[in-house]
């Protein structure tokens, strides 16, 4: 494997980590999946630069990342609009761009959403730990030395020059997700919805919740009308496995949407966000408003199929891309 120095971190911002699609399959060891919160955006960013959709990219939280290209590079920025710039000029999102050695990319401040994804052609060459390049910051493994990026870090990519000809690829405008400060999240009730009062369930569906500043990659903490459990029931249940999107309600009756850094839990869970809406969880930030809407399993799966169809279409476009084929041949020869 030929790795080339690709990016130098000039400023890391509050939290920038290396993430891919996570490490499912190690729950028995207490290992949470980690990975990009907004997997849709990361997959798209990778496809735009000609990577495999599950390659690692940078997850940039809110603002502040400043990186210098150390070689000519094909990059794409997707996800939340953190006002990305290249050499102080706005960089169009959801499209790949060829940047030159010495160019500086900056994520200024959040305009919409919470997390941006930066993919570079050739990915990020870090070792795969437990089948993934994702960073688990709490347990210090994966990603770059198991930690968020720091000033001075140098990232490497696998043969980035092979991806330069893919620059300019874009996601159709109609398929770009819209983020606002008001979120409607689709849920399926369960697994413990029967432990809540009828009023609790009603309020859960109809009252808006505010996202608190205590939210992070382990969970989105909400505050609002208390979601009350039935009276005789204790606060905790016997600990069991959880998945991201599950909405647990601790003793204070304020719901928490579990995210990817949690693997087991001992609180009652009223509902679970559908898989198609999980990527949007990564774009919710403190101060935003969240409402829940109950849907059927059929509707949930239809929404998931719709999302996967967007990805599949982009993959087809990428394969048919005229720039891609000669490039490959050239390298082989």
């Amino acid at each position, binding site marked *: 494997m030929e790795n080339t120095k690709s990016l130098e971190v000039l400023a890391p911002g509050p939290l920038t980590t290396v993430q891919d699609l996570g490490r499912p399959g*190690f*729950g028995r060891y207490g290992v949470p999946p980690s990975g990009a919160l907004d997997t849709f955006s990361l997959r798209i960013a990778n496809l735009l630069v000609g990577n495999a959709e599950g390659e690692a990219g940078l997850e940039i939280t809110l603002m502040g990342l400043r990186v210098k290209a150390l070689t000519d590079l094909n990059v794409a920025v997707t996800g939340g609009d953190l006002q990305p710039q290249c050499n102080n000029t706005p960089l169009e999102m959801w499209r790949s761009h060829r940047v030159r050695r010495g160019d500086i990319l900056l994520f200024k401040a959040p305009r919409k959403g919470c997390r941006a994804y930066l993919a570079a052609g050739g990915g990020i060459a870090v070792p795969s730990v*437990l089948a993934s390049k994702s960073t688990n910051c709490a347990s210090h493994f994966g990603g770059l030395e198991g930690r968020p990026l720091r000033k001075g870090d140098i990232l490497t990519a696998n043969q980035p020059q092979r991806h330069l000809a893919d620059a300019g690829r874009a996601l159709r405008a109609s398929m770009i997700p819209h983020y606002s400060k008001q979120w409607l999240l689709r849920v399926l009730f369960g*697994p413990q919805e029967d432990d809540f009062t009828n009023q609790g369930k009603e309020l859960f569906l109809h009252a808006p919740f505010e996202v608190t500043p205590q939210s992070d990659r382990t969970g989105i903490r909400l505050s609002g009308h208390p979601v009350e459990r039935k009276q005789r029931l204790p606060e905790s249940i*016997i*600990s*069991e496995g959880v998945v991201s999107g*599950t909405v647990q309600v601790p003793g204070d009756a304020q719901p928490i949407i579990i995210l990817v850094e949690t693997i087991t839990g001992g609180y009652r869970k009223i509902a679970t966000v559908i898989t198609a809406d999980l990527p949007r969880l990564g774009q919710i930030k403190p101060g935003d408003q969240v409402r829940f809407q109950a849907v059927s399993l059929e509707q949930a799966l239809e929404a998931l199929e719709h999302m996967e169809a967007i990805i599949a279409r982009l993959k087809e476009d990428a394969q048919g891309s005229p720039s891609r084929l000669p490039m490959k041949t050239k390298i082989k020869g």
Partner: protein
Amino acid sequence: MLYKRLRYRTMGDRALLVELGNEIHATVNQAVRALFITLEKHPIPGVTDVVPTYRSLLITYNPLAISLTTLQVEIARARKRVKPGDLPEPGKFEIPVCYGGRYGPDLEWVARYTGMTPEEVVHLHTGSTYQVFMIGFTPGHPYIAELPEALFTPRRETPRSHVPRGSVGVGTKQTVIYPFESPGGMHILGRTPWVLFDPNRSPPTLLNMGDRVRFFPIQEEEMGCWKTRNPWKS
């Protein structure tokens, strides 16, 4: 109580909780382990993870690859395949713990609460063989039960935000070991020098569900020498 039939609860559109009983009990937990090992041996296509806990398994799956109905049929089939005689022998571990002092800031509190001397608490804690009921909370973090009744305590009223790595804590009927510095609500009796989680090994955890565990006391000056004798299978 062990249920006669598996009970299912859906967790959204891509996870299914399979419950085998309604309490923290060795029989229930052994049934969970047996089903888990069977599912590991005969994996169901479309299943992305299986997380065994005290009394249930959480099965995560790709709903575009396998339907909920088919999944339930496959799990019921796996249950019928379980042969208790086929299960691998659980591991046996004797874990060194430096009790009290700066490593065990809550030993005195537990002694007062249970009406014993700190020495008696250590004597009792090291006097039984326990079972690992599950790994969860953080990577490699074991839930070990069941303590002698005289050692039952409520959890700390205010959990600590930073419990040092290796801390051995008790609360309710259980002992836990914190493999990483993390928040924690247990009473810390001591610390083990052993490393419980190493992501570069396979398996990455020292202790696994079903393992039998005893604790034995070591002195503060012995912490270093036991560190080098971590019993990982290489």
